């Protein structure tokens, strides 16, 4: 009889535990994940760099939080517009319910996006503007606030150079909207006492480290006094910054986006040769993909729409105040990862294949 009681007690405990675990699992399901089953695909226009690989891994991890998603697929356009278009149309034809699109080619992919939307699929372009209108051409556009990045950099520059200074602003390809928005943000905060040394609107680098090095060589030779360099892709500066020391000058302050290689470079160069080398970074923005996935999943599964519609990259490192973080460096991990990302550093290392 005693043993029977024990058995019953054990069974009751097991049932209780199982029920508790189930309710706990239910509680863990995010609000943007609805009950309707759906499949989702992430489409990159150009996925061949570490930033994209970390971003893709972040998106995949976000998808895995929603049990209603039955299938996850990924396609990389390899920088080929035709392939990007055929990827978008092909995924829809395969019966995928929700598509998250990084439209690298901009408005050129809009017709493909629109054709998918017309087939009553959920399609969410993100980060790069593709033109068109929400509700007419696509379900939702999840942009990034590059103006806010400019404002954050501007505030840092004001804090270290309160009476003005000489600035060099480097961005990617000529006329890219990201650089133009960042400039707007900078000009919101900084007055005429802050002088841009570069040609309007920014020095073109194509985010290519070799071109960055050439551009910086010319600017260093031309300008005897550079107080701060602003760049929207910090890691591409790493190869070029030693040029300052070669010219017998201190590396100036940097306002940029984060990257492990940059953090380690800063750490390695804190010496008497570089008294002016201060570093401020905003998050590189891999988590922009998470917000886009949340929107796509919410719309496809009948979940609750996320509160945010624009991804705001948080400030990350500040070598002067240490707020929100001191400069971070993980020498044991590849340089091409982004410690600001929500994805754990070790998982990023796996994502970039190192």
């Amino acid at each position, binding site marked *: 009889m005693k043993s029977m009681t024990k058995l019953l007690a054990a069974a009751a405990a097991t049932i209780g535990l199982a029920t508790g675990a189930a309710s706990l699992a239910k509680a863990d399901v995010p609000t943007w994940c609805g009950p309707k089953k759906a499949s989702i695909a992430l489409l990159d226009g150009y996925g*061949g760099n570490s930033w994209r690989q970390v971003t893709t891994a972040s998106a995949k991890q976000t998808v895995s939080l929603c049990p209603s998603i039955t299938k996850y697929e990924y396609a990389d356009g390899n920088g080929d517009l035709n392939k990007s278009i055929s990827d978008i149309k092909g995924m829809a034809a395969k019966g995928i319910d929700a598509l998250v699109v990084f439209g690298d080619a901009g408005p050129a992919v809009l017709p493909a996006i629109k054709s998918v939307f017309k087939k009553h699929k959920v399609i969410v372009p993100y980060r790069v503007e593709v033109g068109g209108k929400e509700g007419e051409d696509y379900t939702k556009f999840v942009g990034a606030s590059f103006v806010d990045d400019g404002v954050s950099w501007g505030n840092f520059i004001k804090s270290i150079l309160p009476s003005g200074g000489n600035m060099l602003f480097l961005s990617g390809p000529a006329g890219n909207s990201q650089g133009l928005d960042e400039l707007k943000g900078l000009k919101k905060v900084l007055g005429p006492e802050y002088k841009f040394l570069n040609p309007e609107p920014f020095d*073109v680098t194509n985010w*290519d480290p*070799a071109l960055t*090095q*050439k551009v910086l060589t010319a600017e*260093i030779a*031309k300008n005897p006094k550079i107080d701060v360099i602003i760049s929207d892709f910090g890691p591409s500066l790493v190869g070029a910054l030693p040029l300052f020391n070669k010219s017998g000058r201190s590396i100036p302050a940097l306002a940029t986006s984060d990257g492990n290689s940059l953090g380690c470079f800063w750490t390695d160069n804190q010496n008497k040769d570089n008294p002016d080398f201060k570093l401020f970074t905003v998050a590189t923005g891999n988590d922009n993909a998470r917000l886009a996935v949340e929107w796509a999943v919410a719309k496809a599964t009948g979940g609750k729409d996320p509160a945010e519609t624009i991804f705001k990259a948080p400030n990350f490192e500040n070598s002067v105040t240490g707020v929100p973080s001191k400069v971070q460096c993980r020498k044991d991990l590849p340089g*091409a990862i982004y410690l600001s990302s929500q994805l754990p550093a070790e998982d990023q290392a796996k994502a970039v294949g*190192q």
Partner: protein
Amino acid sequence: MSQTTIQPAISIPPLWATLPAKSFVTVVICTIALLIVCWILAPSSVSLGALAGSLPFAAIIAIVGLGQLLVVQQGGFDLSLAGAVSLAVVTSTHEAHQNNAELLHALSLAVGFALAAGVANGILIAVFRLNAIIATIGMNALLYGGVFAVCGGTPSITTELLANIANGQFIGLPTSVFFALAALAIVTFILKKTTVGRRFEAIGANPRAAQAAGLRVRLHQLMAYVCAQLLYCLAGILIGGITREPTAFQGDSLLLPSVAVVVLGGTSLLGGRGYPISTFIAAFFLNQLSQFALAVGVPYSAQTIIQALALGFGIGVYSIKWSVNSFSQTKLPKKEERK
């Protein structure tokens, strides 16, 4: 006997024919003129700091230019340059895993890939007689496949040792310049001072005549592609060191300059005699032109236009001389000798 008596009467060379090649004189004059313009309008672009920073890139253009020169001398074009340089970049950086001890293994692998690509290009073009442009476009796609296979398109940080070698200085000049000078010396010596080199130029000028003369045309043409790939590989390895964290597509921006310096150096796109030294100086010219545009601080669109105009001007200069040559050829044979 009759030759010795007639020749002085019909082919007394004009004074300039005894001077250095016209292409050399032209490119040197253009470069000096550019340096003067730089000195007047944008002195910072000829400062020691600017030269030290930009010379490594001039060296890289010179090395890929020498590779392209060898192929052009055989009447071909090597469009696989972009993929070849990119593959060398990712192999030398990714395969070394930021570990100096693994650098030699990574570099050997890069050289191995270059040899394989060169032999494949050579067989397709010299043996199977495929059009050089088509064959090398295909090879380029294959090499980019290799880039993705090696690194998945992700850039890697270079090893400290390679960065130190490529960024080092020797008697005040970047080491990459010495690598370029070594490549120049080897190419020039082989082309101008060895039997193989003289045959190589003869085959480029007229493969059919060379075949009739019993020269091994296919082998020489094949070797042009192999040597070119080795030079691209050297350029890729240097880029891997100079830029520290290169992209996986670093070769893309070198294809046009490689052809441009060959043309500016005075080598005919129809093949034949090559001008390695002029090509080398043209690389410096082209790089300095881009530094000048950057130093002047004009918008990016204007920078591109300035470079395009200079290139057009350079080609135009040779076109004019070409017609002078054609005209004077009626009196003086040996056109190839005088270009």
